[in-house]
């Protein structure tokens, strides 16, 4: 449950304005989909939320505090590619997050602590549907399974904010639908605030509670240098998603949740 507020953020590269006047208030437990044409700075915006880049001007506040200058463990990330470590097995990839936290010098756990971490990791992997592939290497997994792994890897740190940079862009439609169902379920269970960059509008409206469109209001060639992109549309997605889930989780399990989801009016069916 984390609120994010973005206050008049600008980003310039060598005097070229990429983003200007970006202001945004995000409620806790939102699922924000960021859309827009290529090169409009939505990925840059996501990288600023991650602290992989710093805004030229303006502030980004999480729970009222300024972002630290480097990526930290409270903000998880899944990229379109290169999100998993090729030299570790599926299980080791997820355990790694635990090992970083509890073993500063060696980055490795032994004995009982190791067993415990492995069990926890296996549990999360089972939840994302990788329970049977614990000992495979990422190169032996399909694209969809790799993204599931990347999500599991981020989840073990219990991040307050999850950042997704076109995470499902390279997947085929069937796998994509499956992973959408998974993503919604995880989002509801973990109460994370999620930001997702996507090119796919239907995906944005399907997953998001709010869709933010970036674009350049001034886009003539001579203007492009000095005017950046900004938020042009900010749409709340109807019907609202999380009140449903909150009451639901007070009363029941996840399988029923998905049934309810399918039965919601005005929604396309999920997960065929």
């Amino acid at each position: 449950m984390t609120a994010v507020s973005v206050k008049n953020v600008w980003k310039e590269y060598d005097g070229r304005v990429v983003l200007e006047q970006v202001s945004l208030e995000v409620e806790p437990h939102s699922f924000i989909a960021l859309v827009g044409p290529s090169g409009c700075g939505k990925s840059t915006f996501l990288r600023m939320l991650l602290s992989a880049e710093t805004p030229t001007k303006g502030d980004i506040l999480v729970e009222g505090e300024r972002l630290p200058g480097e990526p930290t463990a409270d903000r998880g990330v899944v990229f379109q590619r290169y999100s998993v470590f090729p030299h570790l097995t599926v299980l080791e990839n997820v355990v790694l997050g635990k090992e970083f936290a509890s073993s500063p010098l060696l980055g490795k756990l032994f004995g009982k602590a190791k067993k415990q971490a492995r069990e926890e990791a296996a549990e999360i992997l089972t939840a994302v549907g990788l329970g049977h592939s614990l000992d495979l290497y990422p190169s032996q997994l399909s694209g969809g399974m790799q993204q599931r792994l990347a999500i599991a890897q981020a989840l073990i740190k219990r991040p307050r904010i999850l950042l997704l940079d076109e995470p499902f862009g390279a997947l085929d439609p069937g796998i994509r639908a499956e992973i959408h169902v998974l993503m919604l379920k995880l989002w509801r269970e973990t109460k994370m605030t999620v930001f997702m960059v996507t090119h796919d509008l239907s995906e944005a409206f399907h997953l998001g509670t709010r869709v933010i469109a970036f674009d350049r209001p001034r886009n003539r060639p001579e203007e492009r240098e000095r005017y950046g992109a900004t938020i042009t549309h900010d749409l709340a997605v109807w019907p609202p998603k999380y009140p449903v889930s909150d009451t639901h989780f007070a009363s029941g399990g996840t399988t029923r949740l998905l049934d309810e989801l399918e039965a919601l009016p005005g929604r396309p069916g999920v997960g065929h």
Partner: protein
Amino acid sequence: MPYVRTTFNGFVAVIAMIPPLAILPILFIIFGLGETSKVALIVIGVAPVVMRDMILRVDEMPRELMVKAQTLGASTWQIALRVVVPQMMPRLIDSVRLSLCSAWLFLIAAEAIASQSGLGYRIFLLRRYLAMDTILPYVAWITLLAFALDFGLRRLQHKAFPWFAGRA
């Protein structure tokens, strides 16, 4: 890490440019005519090349992996230890395999100049007698040794880093 890099990068770049055979006499003077000078020659000749190759390979690693490691709570040291070094090991073996060629060159050259034993020494000794019939088997032996080393390294890479072979 950037500091370590800026300190040593230029140093390695210059050292790598010194032709190792040109300093062979210096090595003979410092280490004597024994085995030490030959080992030193091979190290000086091969190490900078391998180092520079490793620097380039590290540069090739996707930035995303580093950011991902940071979001998993890794410190710089932990990233080096658990992410960068393990991924570099199989590439190090590749690099050494390629360097074997020049390592042999240095060895035989050093043996030709000053030695009392060794395959290179024998070849250059026999040259005086135009004994082609004996030189050729020696060449075959050296080739066989070189091939065996290369093959061994390749097997080691397969065994120790199974993830490396199947990667896309």
